[in-house]
Structure formats: structure tokens, C-alpha cells
């Protein structure tokens, strides 16, 4: 649910990074935070456990610039990836405008990826959304590791609709902004359709 304020001339949109535990959702936000000008970003808030696993969510507000005199703000959220935080994951998806699915490219995480993707579709449906109708981008993360699955295999398993996908190494930043840019673009195009 985007929030359009004609009085302060602002558009606020919510983008959620989803994916299995340890796939790099928080790492994406941390990289974006590091590489954005101070005047364009707010604080990066992480509600994490002592071992730096996301407990509830990470939150990063970004104000990238203006479109037609409206300040465009994106609120980036991550969900806690670990399976047993299912209840919290559902809450974060409320009011989402666009989703990034971060997949872990390691062969042994393929099942976790598929499980998480199913979980995403179910949780969205519970909120009255359909994944096929929502701005959606896939990121194949950790491409620098030795044990990664070939892209075609990952596409077959995770991306049968052939939606936009990006290879990434989030710790080093490659593919991070490409992914964000793609989903943000889809969100704005969707906004254009409705208003």
C-alpha cells in the first residue's frame, strides 16, 4: 500500500526483501545503507538477536529524489528468514508494494529457497495479494561461492515465469543496486497504472 501525500508532496512505497535464512537480505540493506548519500537515507534499524540473526525486521528508509515534484521515498524491509519466525514474516508483508526474493545460490540451499518462495506466496495470499500481480524481482545471491548451482537450474526451479532476475554478491555489493532499481521501477510503473 503506497501512501501518496499531496500536502507534503511525497510518495511512500514499501519494498520487502524475502528469502531463506542466511541468504543475504540484511546484507543487501547494509550495502545499500553504506553506499547511499547521507541526505538520501535514514537510519538502518535492525531488530536482531545477539548473534545478528534478524529477529523481527531490518528497516531502511531511502529518499532517492523527486518525480514530477513529488519526493519518492522507499521503505526497505527484510523479513526474518529462519523458518520458525513465520508469524513475524507475515506481519512485515502487510502493505507491501514490491518484493525482492533473495535466493541463496549454494546447491545445498536450493530446497530452502523453494520452501521460502512457497512460504512467500502463501503469506501474500493471506494478506490478499497475488505474487503474480505484485512488482517482483529475484536476486541470485552469493555467486562468488564455489558450490553454486548453475543459473539455468535456479531459473527453472525458482523463476518459471521468467521475471527479472539478477546475479549478486551482496557482501561485495555487486547486483545489489541493480536489484533495487529493478523492483523500484516496477513499483513506480504500477503506481502509474493506478493513479
Amino acid at each position, binding site marked *: *500500500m*503506497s*501512501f*501518496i*501525500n*499531496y*500536502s*507534503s508532496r511525497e*510518495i*511512500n512505497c*514499501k519494498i520487502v526483501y524475502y528469502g531463506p535464512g542466511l541468504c543475504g537480505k540484511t546484507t543487501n540493506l547494509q550495502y545499500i545503507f553504506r553506499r547511499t548519500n547521507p541526505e538520501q537515507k*535514514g*537510519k538502518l*534499524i535492525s*531488530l536482531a538477536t545477539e548473534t545478528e540473526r534478524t529477529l*523481527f*525486521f531490518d*528497516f531502511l*528508509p531511502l529518499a*532517492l*529524489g523527486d*518525480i*514530477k*515534484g*513529488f519526493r*519518492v521515498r522507499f*521503505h526497505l*524491509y527484510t523479513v526474518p528468514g529462519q523458518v520458525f519466525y513465520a*508469524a*513475524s514474516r*507475515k*506481519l*512485515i508483508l*502487510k*502493505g507491501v*508494494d514490491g518484493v525482492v526474493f533473495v535466493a541463496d545460490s549454494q546447491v545445498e540451499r536450493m530446497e530452502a529457497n523453494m520452501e521460502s518462495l512457497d512460504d512467500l506466496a502463501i503469506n501474500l495470499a493471506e494478506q*490478499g*495479494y497475488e505474487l503474480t500481480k505484485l512488482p517482483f524481482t529475484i536476486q541470485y545471491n552469493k555467486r562468488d561461492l564455489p558450490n553454486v548451482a548453475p543459473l539455468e537450474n535456479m531459473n527453472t526451479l525458482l523463476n518459471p515465469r521468467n521475471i527479472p532476475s539478477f546475479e549478486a554478491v551482496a557482501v561485495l555489493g555487486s547486483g545489489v*543496486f541493480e536489484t533495487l*532499481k529493478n523492483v*523500484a*521501477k516496477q513499483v*513506480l*510503473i*504500477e*503506481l*502509474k*497504472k*493506478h*493513479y
Partner: protein
Amino acid sequence: MSASDLVMYEEEFNKIDDELQKLYMQTNAKVVFLVDKNGQLIASAGETHDLDTTSLASLTAGNIAATGGIARLLGEREFTILFHEGEKDNIHISLIGARVILVVIFDKRSSLGLVRLRVKKATESLVKMFDEITSKSEREKSEGKLDESPFAEISDEDIDNLFR
């Protein structure tokens, strides 16, 4: 995008802003703000300059969402009021209708009783205002009145410029 998008025009925004200013004065609070359930800040009044209102808004919404989750597990529809007491500052969070959250931060210059009383009064007016906003944007959408919308002409170039 869902039908629940919130579109706010100047006229309604001013009314809401006035109501918040009034509540701020009447409660002797430090800060009063209004957040939608998804964590977007709608309006605020009081000493906001030192506060990271964006983060506050998102965390408040997270708080309400988590509490709502607990409520449903217990078979309650929702817990409409949350109160956190600190050493110096206290925070009173309440749900307005089903979609916005009213937050009052106050210290010893005020009291919980006063805040509760005034929040209750303000809630009645705010519920009406948000009902009007919802019906107005639905009406305008169905009448196709949004042709002056600034978004109709968004170009790929505009979007690319954001990421320079």
C-alpha cells in the same frame, strides 16, 4: 496495488494536522504523531526536530503488528492501546479505526490519565476524518477524477534519474 492505498490531499491533511496540534497542546505532550499501520508517518506535532520520526513510525507499526499478532493468537480482535513507561518519557500508542496509529510521547509534565482522556476525544474526530478520506479517494477513483495525477506521465527517464 491494493484498494487500500492511502491518498491524502491538502484539505484533509490540514484538518488532521490541526487535530494533532490540538491534542499536543491539550495533553502537554512532547510529541504527537500519526502513523499508518504499514509504518508510514502521516503527520506529527510537537518537538520532532531531535527525533528520528521515520524510524519511530516504522517501529511503532511493527510494535502494533506484533501485538495484533499476539491478540489474534489469544482470540482477541486487537489490543487497541499500548503503553510503555520509561524513566523520563512514556509512550502511549492507540489504534484509530482499523488503519492508523496515534502516538503520544510525554514526560512528567503530563499524566497517563490526561493522555488517555484526550486521546479518546481526538480518536472520535480522527476516525471521522479517515472515513472521509477513504470515501473521497474511492469516489474519485471510481469517477476517474485522478486524471490530473502526477504519476500518469512518469517516464522511464524519470525513474532512471532517481538512481543516478
